[in-house]
């Protein structure tokens, strides 16, 4: 029986990581760690109540309470929407619409990943979905036309992560629920940082190409202005979806959950128009969406229970008090928090990291004077980084699957984009107003 909360927290988290590394599923590891925490803590229960009953009722209730959430209902819907769009011709349409415009920019089609991912991210809630949907078309096209392979792979990895930053975003939904921040405001707050990040990727590509002309094939693809306009019709489906999903949220007419349902219906309409709506496609997008939603929600339920335990046995408060007693200034604190997320990002996926750490980290960060809206965007970028940090980076796995390149090549190609993303964190720290500008206009 341990009563000192600091020692208790060390024992608890060591136990949790032991289970995680032993290969127990993340959701179950969180439940097990919670049970363990209750057992080793010096509980002062009346003799009529057994510790197992207390644990059991806490577990059952936190499972129900985590799932009994209207806001969280948006999550499966956005996943479903992404699955439907993945099976449509939407990525081909994006490519056709963008090619004529990009052919006159230095670096030409190398920008296709950045622009297509930014646009697709505005209808997709996850980085994996964005990377997979855009990458399945662009990587092949760029290879066929003789563009530099490294820049193609790297820009896909970097820009694909915009799926989490540019709304809608699964991470923002989860963060919004856990931190009691408006999901609508988080969504809109991610727009400007997302555009800046995409802009920096494009700038990097232009600089690389200016110094090394061999990266771009010497093909002459000329388009007249009318041809460009004509090709732009291909972009209408994506723009239509962006408007119906984000427009309602921005104007305050729909909640994010309603916007998600509208998005699902809109995607079905597009799939029908593109003649991609076969029974096979429908069934596989539905079952895949169920699978991903259940995976995420089970982790959320486990983390919900663990955070109840952490609060109940006093770890959360003790850790906050301890950090405050260290007298770190706000910069130092956010640096340490950032470093911690970076390290966790190596072994865990983004959503698990957010739900596991937030109950402890959020109060500390707010205490230091950071705004919850700002910290949400900061967290999203940290999660994006975790998507492309080895050895466990989900975007890397997705790209490995569609490009058939080995992971070392992909990592090397991704590194410059990783640095750009990390510098985005710095920009966010120096100019926090880029987060608040749009939400304040809502």
């Amino acid at each position, binding site marked *: 029986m341990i009563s000192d909360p600091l020692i208790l927290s060390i024992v608890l988290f060591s136990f949790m990581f032991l289970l995680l590394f032993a290969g127990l599923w993340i959701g179950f590891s969180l439940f097990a760690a919670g049970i363990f925490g209750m057992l080793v803590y010096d509980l002062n229960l009346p003799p009529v109540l057994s510790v197992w009953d207390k644990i059991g009722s806490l577990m059952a209730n936190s499972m129900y309470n985590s799932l009994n959430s209207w806001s969280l209902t948006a999550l499966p819907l956005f996943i479903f929407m992404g699955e439907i769009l993945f099976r449509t011709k939407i990525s081909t349409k994006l490519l056709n619409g963008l090619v004529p415009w990009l052919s006159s920019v230095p670096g030409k089609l190398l920008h296709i990943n950045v622009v297509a991912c930014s646009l697709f991210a505005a209808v997709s809630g996850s980085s994996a979905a964005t990377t997979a949907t855009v990458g399945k078309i662009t990587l092949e096209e760029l290879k066929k036309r003789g563009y530099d392979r490294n820049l193609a792979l790297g820009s896909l990895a970097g820009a694909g992560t915009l799926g989490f930053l540019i709304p809608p975003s699964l991470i923002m939904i989860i963060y919004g629920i856990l931190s009691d921040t408006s999901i609508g405001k988080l969504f809109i707050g991610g727009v400007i940082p997302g555009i800046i990040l995409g802009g920096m990727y494009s700038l990097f590509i232009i600089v690389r190409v200016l110094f090394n002309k061999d990266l771009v094939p010497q093909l002459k693809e000329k388009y007249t202005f009318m041809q460009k306009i004509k090709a732009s019709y291909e972009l209408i489906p994506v723009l239509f979806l962006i408007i119906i999903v984000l427009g309602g949220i921005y104007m305050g007419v*729909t909640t994010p959950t309603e916007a998600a349902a509208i998005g699902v219906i809109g995607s079905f309409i597009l799939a029908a128009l593109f003649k991609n709506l076969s029974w096979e496609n429908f069934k596989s997008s539905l079952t895949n969406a169920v699978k991903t939603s259940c995976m995420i929600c089970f982790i959320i339920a486990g983390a919900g229970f663990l955070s109840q335990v952490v609060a109940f046995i006093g770890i959360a408060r003790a850790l906050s008090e301890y950090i405050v007693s260290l007298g770190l200034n706000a910069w130092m604190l956010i640096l340490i928090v950032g470093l911690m997320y970076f390290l966790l990002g190596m072994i865990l996926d983004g959503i698990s990291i957010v739900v596991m750490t937030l109950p402890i980290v959020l109060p500390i960060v707010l205490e230091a004077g950071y705004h919850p809206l700002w910290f949400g965007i900061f967290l999203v970028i940290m999660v994006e980084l975790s998507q492309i940090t080895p050895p466990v980076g989900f975007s890397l796995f997705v790209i490995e699957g569609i490009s058939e390149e080995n992971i070392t090549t992909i990592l090397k190609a991704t590194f410059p984009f990783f640095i750009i993303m990390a510098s985005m964190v710095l920009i966010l720290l120096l100019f926090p107003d880029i987060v608040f500008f749009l939400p304040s206009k809502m």
Partner: protein
Amino acid sequence: MIGKLIHIIRKVSGIGTCLSSLFMIFITILIGLEVLLRSVFDTTTHISTEYSTYFFIALVSLGLAYTMREDGHIRITLLTGRLKGKAKKIQEISTTVLALIISVFLFYHTVLMAYETYSLGMKADTVSETPLYIPQLAIPVGILLLIIQLIDRILEIIYDFGSTDT
């Protein structure tokens, strides 16, 4: 015999998958209807928010087993991915057994929770006054399916175990 048992188990968890998928569609239709009614006919279903949340609880609970079967629940394979042969099987069995124990415990207590809600007659404080034990019951049903799936998993590993040894 074990083959037959696994076959039956698959059938049962297939039902869970179907129901889970159906709830996804129900949510979409219900909210879609609400948005349509509100924007075009200036009226409301009254229950859209409440019931889509119940459907969501059912979607997740009933889909847990299917997700397990399809290896959809994620875990860290950084170290365990290097294990081979017997060590791999021991690791697989022990983590699955641990998951099974937690699931059984959770099953018992979610049944208890739903029963308590039922006996106290708790209702949602909305126009529908839905008895809350109904959405709560979805959780133990889903976890029961998960338990069956985990048993199936253990059987499969042990079964495979025997066949490679002989």
